[in-house]
């Protein structure tokens, strides 16, 4: 009984330390974990119920893609944690994407979107995905005219945006507004309940995991703040997914991405890895860096990492426990952790409690409004 009490006390102490001012890791302090604040909303795209409803329709609407095959929801499936269960996102027919399709959940909190942070808002991310040649492959004007052929959309765009005919830019704004509703409900997340004072919300194992998270395992170095992400970019030395060694259609996209992202010819010729942030900054030190993802809802968002290399959390923990991967340029933050099997299980128990109790925001595809003849 005493021992149990001590364990609880230790967990609470660590949490309090982390919540209040941050835990010192070396010389750095880190923003504490904690419940998510209210969703940040850009002043030029305020939330309204009608806008969110419109955005939901558009998110599921196949007409916002080149050949009607690839709505947002094709790669961000509500029942698959708002991502896909495949390591690499499926991509447009005839192609294969080259990165893991990230969950939409809680993306409202990211300052930059995509694994390499190449998009600065949800409003800008949506067209990049819908128009990308290995994603939606849609033409802006074609998609806009498709919306204009749907009387229900004409009516709704008028109501929501006060415009006489649907605009594609407003479509992305509505989708962004919808995505801002896809956030974790703190009352349904064990860790958030715990952080708000429900000490029974985390099992002893999960509490030990929390202590490891902010302590021995060093997770908090990057996975900090309410989102459990520093929104910074790190090179984990992660190997490329083997699919790029073995699958022709994946190799096509791999080369295509190097080509369109403007690397040198020598880099293109030798490219055997996704260079991540480097494509955006072209700074050599950014090669292989990817944005720290949120750890929230990860129970529902396997597989993991920017290329979906790890199918389970156990794989992820093993990877960090040995100090990350072999690829060059690895962050000095990664060191072998020396976690025992028990500690890994504890850590996993904690990580899973960063997810909602049930898969969040599972929803069916809404009935989409049809085209009309416009004489």
């Amino acid at each position, binding site marked *: 009984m005493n021992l149990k009490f001590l364990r609880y006390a230790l967990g609470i102490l660590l949490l309090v330390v982390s919540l209040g001012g941050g835990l010192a890791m070396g010389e750095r302090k880190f923003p504490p974990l904690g419940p998510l604040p209210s969703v940040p909303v850009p002043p030029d795209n305020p939330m309204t119920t009608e806008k969110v409803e419109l955005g939901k329709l558009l998110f599921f609407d196949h007409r916002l893609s080149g050949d009607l*095959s690839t709505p947002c929801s094709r790669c961000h499936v509500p029942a698959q944690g708002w991502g896909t269960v495949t390591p690499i996102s499926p991509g447009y027919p*005839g192609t294969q994407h080259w990165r893991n399709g990230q969950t939409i959940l809680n993306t409202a909190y990211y300052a930059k979107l995509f694994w390499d942070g190449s998009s600065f808002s949800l409003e800008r991310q949506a067209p990049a995905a819908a128009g990308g040649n290995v994603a939606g492959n849609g033409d802006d004007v*074609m998609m806009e005219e498709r919306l*204009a*052929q749907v009387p229900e959309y004409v009516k709704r765009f008028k109501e929501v945006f006060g415009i006489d005919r649907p605009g594609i830019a407003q479509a992305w704004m509505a989708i962004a507004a919808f995505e801002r509703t896809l956030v974790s409900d703190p009352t349904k997340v064990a860790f958030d309940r715990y952080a708000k004072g429900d000490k029974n919300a985390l099992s002893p194992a999960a509490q030990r995991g929390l202590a490891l998270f902010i302590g021995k395992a060093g997770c908090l170095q990057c996975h900090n703040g309410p989102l459990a992400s520093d929104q910074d970019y790190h090179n984990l030395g992660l190997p490329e997914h083997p699919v790029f060694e073995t*699958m022709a259609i994946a190799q096509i996209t791999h080369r295509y991405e190097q080509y369109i992202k403007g690397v040198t010819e020598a880099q293109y010729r030798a490219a055997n890895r996704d260079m991540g942030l480097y494509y955006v900054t072209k700074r050599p030190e950014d090669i292989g860096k990817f944005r720290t993802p949120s750890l929230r809802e990860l129970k529902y968002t396997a597989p993991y990492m920017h290329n979906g290399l790890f199918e389970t959390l156990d794989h992820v923990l093993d990877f960090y426990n040995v100090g990350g991967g072999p690829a060059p340029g690895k962050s000095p933050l990664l060191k072998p952790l020396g976690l025992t099997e028990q500690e890994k299980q504890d850590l996993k128990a904690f990580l899973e409690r960063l997810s909602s109790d049930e898969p969040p925001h599972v929803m069916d595809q809404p009935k989409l409004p049809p085209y009309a003849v416009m004489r």
Partner: protein
Amino acid sequence: MQFGLRHVCTYLIALLIPDAHPGVTRWYVCGFRRAWRSVAALTAGMVLLPAVLVAQQAPPLGPLPTPPAQKAEQVELGRLLFFDERLSGDNAIACAYCHQPEKGWGDGQPLSEGYPGSPYFRNAPMVLNVFFQKQRYWDGRLSGADLPTLVRDHLTEAHFMNADGRLLQERLKQVPEYVEMFDRAFGKGDPSFGKILNAVAAFMRTLVSRNSPFDRYLNGDQAALSGEARSGLALFTGKAGCTQCHHGPLLSDGKYHALGVPEHPQIIEEPERHITLRRFNRTLGVPNAVNVREDVGRHAVTKEREDWKAFRTPTLRELKYTAPYMHNGTLATLVDVVNFYNQGGGSATPKSPLLKPLGLTDAEKRALVAFLESLSGDPVVITWPESLPEYAVRPFGQN
């Protein structure tokens, strides 16, 4: 002036076809006799003859010139690419889906299929003899000077194949046989988008009419045209007035005319086609594009009033194989086409003043159709490749 020119042209046709059907001669003789009655017209015609011919660019009917020889390796590569669905964004269609060899190198439908989700709003023309065209598309929005540009426009346009050139070259680089073929066709080096366009264009330059009865007739084989067809030729150059627009080796003046062809209802009644049309009008900058409910033809390119609903005069070669007819495929048969012109074109306005009721008898209409059919040669048969070279895994990092 117009009077003089008309007869000068007829005269030249008669010169070119010395043994033309008596009808031609009679027509020309009558015309010439009338011309004599106007000394002024004759004088003007004779004095201005060379200048008029150049200015009007109205060459006589005649055989097609021979296109420049193409490098066999480029043609062979282009032939495969023409049938390869991987040149479309989603691998759903190839060039040959809308330009099918067995359907006269068109698709046999009034309106072209276009890209999935974006069906097109005009008829897919055949690609035979495309090399000789001075302008591309029904509205002439591309110059004929550069055939690879036509290929590029088809591969990348959202309503055609909706593909990205950079992605295409990486796709083809993933096909070992293609890589070898590109090396042989263009010298050693990666497949590039430019080479893709050039290879397909090289193949298309080989797609020309062969051995049409009319060409044989022009070359002296009197028996190549039946008596009925020869009567049709006389009508073509005479009473029916076809040569006003259909002349030269291609039987096209390369100009744009409004014929009053009715709209194909599906461009509005079918929402997806309407979308494609509206998006097209927007991207070309047609004024009030979102409210236009018709295909404005050449006007979309020039925005000139006189080009409203004008369309490029198509070649008449190979039309035996290329039904249905007109820019929107609204006329199903050649008989329909002849009837259309016989009544002076369509009822839509504006309409070219060149179109007037012709007063053709049924026999004359049959003769005209017989002549028109003689403009079609042996079918240019190219079979679909039984298989296309496949993707293969490459050594990763040796790009």
